[in-house]
């Protein structure tokens, strides 16, 4: 039995895992870098230990240090969250060797899915549909041209070791291919220390739809429906939802069964996600499997009522799944918006710095997973995502309306965020219609930056009042300064 868990992560996901531990009555151990001494996850945990300086390589990526803290604090298990060590087969193995339960899949499954071309080979063998393309890294530009003849244009070049869009190139014809190949390869080398690039047919106006699966160590595996993640910027997800407005019940079953097939092919255990590229006809192709919890896992929890972290921990203990496929039912709709500290008006430049004030949305059908706090720092050392705003509705329209309300209530003062950009996406008529594909943002918010908002009389007036107050040094006083006994009379004027 697991009684104490170490969370080898930071930020909102560390906080979210901590809450699951509290909900399960388990003790928690946080680790933190010197930059995170005052972070939420440190304060919420039962125990907390510093594991090094700010840079991840010297703290959150230090496997041995983290394992030592686990052993010293008596934690029986480690939850890696996402990012950092979550998809590191070596870490999973090291945990095993140290007698610590790694809350995630076995090293073998991480390894099998870790390298994209290998993963595609395995999937193809297992009968999972993959995009026509080279299963092997390409030797040179010429073999790229060869392969493209076979798959047909347009083609996509991808870094074998890659992710997050680095080392990717879309090529429309053979003339552009050689140059694009060289760029992609060098970018891949720079980003991942591995220049290997492969090629596949590019799906036009594709949707990114992924299936959440859950598997135990006894061979049971279920799918928890899909997530639509087509709203992306630079291949980074921005808005996600469940279910997908594009997926029919029949298609859901098909994709789900294929996803289970894929997971079983690598002996998968724990929560995992199979990402599919879906074309306009509904044909879907395996892209990759994320062998960890996803950032966007919350939307699946909202519509299924299943706590994925809780299930991960149960399964890691060796328990069988607490549910069968027929127990999984989707209720209503859920969306997630990722709040990043970045400036949409300046080419989405990251905005590290001090947060002066945070106000999170509240009330019905809203969930916020966040580690942001008033006077907190958005550190330049880590991912600029500061919060996830999640909404639920009985149908998609209600869900989107509630997301609009939640974003309106959301406020971070001091550092710039993409909140207004998210608001513009959620209110976009094409978004409301569910006409989504991975080109959505580029098409509707063309260019790198977003347009400046209309001036507001209220804003101009507020600025002047604030300036006036500051000039009078009344800044220090708090509480209502103006309450007008005569206001109600004024309100009564003109009733005639």
């Amino acid at each position: 039995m697991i009684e104490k868990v170490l969370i080898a992560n930071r930020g909102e996901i560390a906080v979210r895992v901590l809450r699951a531990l509290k909900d399960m009555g388990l003790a928690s151990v946080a680790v933190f870098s010197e930059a995170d001494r005052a972070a939420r996850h440190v304060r919420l945990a039962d125990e907390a230990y510093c594991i090094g300086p700010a840079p991840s390589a010297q703290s959150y990526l230090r496997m041995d240090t983290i394992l030592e803290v686990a052993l010293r604090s008596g934690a029986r298990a480690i939850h890696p969250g996402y990012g950092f060590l979550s998809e590191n087969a070596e870490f999973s193995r090291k945990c095993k060797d140290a007698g610590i339960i790694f809350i995630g899949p076995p090293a073998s499954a991480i390894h099998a899915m870790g390298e994209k071309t290998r993963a595609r080979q395995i999937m193809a063998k297992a009968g999972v549909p993959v995009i026509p393309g080279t299963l092997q890294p390409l030797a040179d530009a010429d073999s790229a041209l060869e392969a493209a003849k076979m798959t047909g244009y347009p083609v996509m070049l991808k870094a074998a070791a890659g992710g997050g869009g680095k080392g990717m190139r879309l090529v429309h014809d053979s003339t552009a291919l050689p140059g694009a190949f060289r760029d992609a390869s060098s970018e891949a080398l720079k980003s991942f220390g591995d220049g290997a690039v492969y090629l596949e047919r590019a799906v036009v106006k594709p949707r990114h739809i992924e299936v959440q699966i859950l598997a135990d160590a006894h061979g049971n595996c279920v799918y928890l429906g899909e997530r639509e993640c087509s709203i992306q910027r630079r291949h980074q997800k921005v808005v996600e939802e469940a279910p997908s407005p594009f997926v029919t019940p029949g298609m859901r079953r098909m994709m789900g069964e294929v996803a289970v097939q894929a997971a079983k092919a690598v002996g998968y255990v724990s929560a995992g996600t199979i990402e599919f590229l879906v074309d306009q006809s509904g044909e879907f192709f395996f892209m990759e499997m994320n062998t960890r919890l996803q950032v966007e896992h919350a939307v699946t929890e909202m519509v299924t009522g299943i706590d994925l972290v809780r299930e991960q921990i149960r399964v890691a203990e060796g328990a069988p799944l607490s549910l069968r496929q027929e127990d999984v039912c989707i209720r209503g709709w859920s969306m997630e918006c990722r709040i990043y500290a970045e400036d949409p008006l300046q080419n989405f430049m990251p905005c590290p710095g001090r947060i002066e004030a945070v106000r999170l949305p509240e009330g019905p059908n809203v969930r916020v997973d966040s580690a942001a706090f008033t006077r907190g720092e958005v550190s330049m050392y880590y991912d600029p995502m500061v919060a996830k705003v999640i909404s639920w509705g009985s149908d998609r329209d209600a869900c989107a309306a509630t997301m609009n309300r939640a974003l309106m209530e959301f406020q971070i003062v001091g550092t710039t965020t993409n909140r207004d950009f998210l608001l513009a996406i959620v209110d976009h008529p094409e978004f409301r219609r569910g006409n989504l594909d991975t080109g959505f943002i580029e098409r509707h918010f063309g260019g790198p930056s977003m347009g400046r908002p209309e001036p507001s009389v209220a804003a101009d007036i507020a600025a002047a009042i604030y300036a006036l107050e500051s000039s009078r040094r009344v800044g220090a006083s708090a509480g209502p300064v103006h309450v007008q006994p005569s206001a109600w009379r004024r309100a009564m004027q003109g009733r005639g």
Partner: protein
Amino acid sequence: MRYVIVRDERQIPIEVEEREGGYSVELDGKLYEVEGAKVLDGLYSLLIGGESFEVAVHSPKPGLYDVHLYDGMRRVELLSPLEMVLRAEGGKAHAHGKSVRAPMPGKVVKVLVTEGQRVVKGQGVVVVEAMKMQNELQAPGDGVVKAVKTKEGDSVESGAELVVLDDEA
């Protein structure tokens, strides 16, 4: 108190007077009676003709005000008479030499221009990497590169001057 809002090269006069229960504001010649209540520092409730606004105001630097409304944040450039004067002087210097500065701490991964090169407004001049993302810094206006004060691989502080431009005289 009189201020000026600078927006799209335009100067919009705004005058605010405190009165019982709030403020009288004249904006661009139009008068507004504002019922104001301060919730806490920088957070106000404004009632303008019955319409309710919650506004959070933060001033990142003198003359600049980030005003957060439910429907979006507005960055208002608002200057007092004194600031107008200072700005005017600063402005001259500014007009004769724009420079590209690092908006955040980071690493210079690419310099896209060389001294003497002609650049147009919005043209990328330097690529800085921070928070695992690459960001292209653009020329604030047309001009000629007068000096390149950084090189690839440099770690730069926020505000560091990277490239100096000269207007085409």
